[in-house]
């Protein structure tokens, strides 16, 4: 268990902080416990600590029920941890805010707004002037390749297109960190690959700090700088692995030995977890 985060946490924070660049996201000893209807306590996350440096593409991978999505909801401020703290850009998370954009697995576009109005939603909340709004929206429409669909309503779009709008909508707000909760989980495999390529391209342009949750190992290795492998019961970080594959990434790289080695390693970690469960 030579986890990077675990070693850093053994140092007092006052010593660890000064000379390293401050992490964009710091999850500090977070636990999340539910009371089940039967009255017992279920531990979704147990003492989870890790950091994500600025401009990193972090992927959290784990079996279902390991609390990986909960971790995103906690970071977004949509839920509260039972214990511990989360810091984004040095500020403690206390409720949701526009500094933490999120793309959900389910389709969450506002169906009564056009594509343009959806992307504008956050900008309007920030009271950004119309001319500037238009400029920002046009830029992101272009990034996700939906210039011709600006005035369409979500019901006229395919699932992949809707998720592209959701990504544009989150990025238009210029958040400190982009949280992605299995955003391509509901898409067919062809569309999924297109979306992965699109996301890689957008990320090369923006270098936004991303925390991406998935259960798809290929997706984790293809997208991530670092893969945080989680285990279940209780949900915890088992291992943090750096992905030794250069950028920009392309689809061909899934055949490279490094890629396959990495996949095998993650698969092994997840497999251990399944065996422990039995």
């Amino acid at each position, binding site marked *: 268990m030579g986890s990077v985060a675990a070693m850093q946490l053994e140092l007092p924070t006052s010593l660890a902080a000064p000379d390293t660049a401050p992490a964009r996201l710091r999850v500090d000893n977070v636990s999340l416990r539910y009371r089940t209807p039967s009255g017992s306590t279920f531990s979704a996350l147990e003492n989870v600590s890790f950091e994500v440096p600025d401009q990193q593409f972090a992927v959290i991978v784990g079996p279902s029920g390991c609390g990986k999505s909960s971790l995103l909801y906690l970071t977004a401020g*949509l839920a509260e941890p039972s214990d511990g703290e989360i810091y984004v850009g040095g500020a403690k998370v206390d409720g949701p805010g526009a500094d933490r954009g999120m793309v*959900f697995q389910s389709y969450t576009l506002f*169906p*009564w707004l056009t594509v343009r109005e959806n992307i504008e*939603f*956050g900008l309007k909340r920030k009271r950004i002037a119309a001319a500037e709004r238009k400029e920002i929206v046009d830029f992101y429409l272009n990034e996700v390749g939906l210039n011709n669909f600006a005035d369409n309503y979500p019901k006229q779009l395919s699932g992949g297109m809707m998720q592209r709008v*959701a990504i544009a909508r989150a990025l238009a*707000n210029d958040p400190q960190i982009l*949280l992605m909760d299995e955003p391509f989980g509901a898409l067919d495999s062809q569309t999924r690959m297109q979306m992965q390529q699109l996301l890689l391209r957008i990320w090369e342009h923006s270098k936004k700090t991303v925390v991406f949750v998935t259960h798809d190992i290929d997706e984790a290795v293809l997208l991530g700088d670092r893969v945080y492998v989680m285990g279940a019961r209780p949900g915890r970080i088992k291992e943090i692995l750096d992905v030794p594959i250069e950028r920009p990434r392309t689809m061909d790289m899934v055949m490279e030995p490094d890629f396959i080695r990495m996949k095998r390693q993650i698969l092994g970690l997840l497999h251990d977890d399944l065996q422990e469960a039995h």
Partner: protein
Amino acid sequence: MATQKSWVQRCLTPKVDLPHKLTLAAGALCWIVVFGLWAILSYGAMVPSMFLPTPGDVISAGVRLASDGTLGKHVFASVEVVVIGFVVSSLVAVPLGLLMGSFRIVQAVLEPLVNFIRYLPVTSFVPLFILWIGIGLEQRVTVIIFGVFFQQLVMIADVSKGISKDLLNASYTLGASRRDVVMHVLGPASLPGVLDTLRVTMGWAWTYLVVAELVAASSGLGYISLKAMRGFQVDVIFLAIAIIGLLGLMTDQLFRILRLKVASWAQ
């Protein structure tokens, strides 16, 4: 012949679409059958004219009452009561229902009482309303409000309960405040469901109107119907029923068009 056979098969297969013309023809056929039966029974004198008027009788009754102005007066009286009752009820039920579906505290306060009242037959309150309010317009309006309001409240609460939590979560992560979420997310997201509820409950408002007018009124379509019964004017009763049906159909279409206009974005 081949196409005819496939038509028959398509008609007998569940959930298979049919040509538009065929569905129109089938709907028209049903009307023709009903009117045909009516015509045969009445013109053929198989049923005494005291109980069943001929279609011609009903039309001439309509012309007679329309020309002397009584019909217009009574139609207006009924529409007035329905519109006042329905609008007053909706103005309170829509916002309160949305709050009830979205805020657990509002639900906790209102639900036990509303669910009790909802199952009380409105008709059982009519004597009480007459005693309290009299037999004027206010009484009939009250019957409609009482009949419609609690149903609207529960149905609209369900509409707003049905709005995906993810939609709210997404707006929070885009920087929306709680107020923004209520005004810019819950409100518009509920609109199609609210309009559907209004459309359905408008039909119920017509029902309660007639109940109220039959019991105690001095004008309205229910009233002329009751008066016609006493005078054995069965043609006028038929006329009143037909007009209530037509008015109901018109308001229903109005709501359908409104729904298409303001919520065309909905699935």
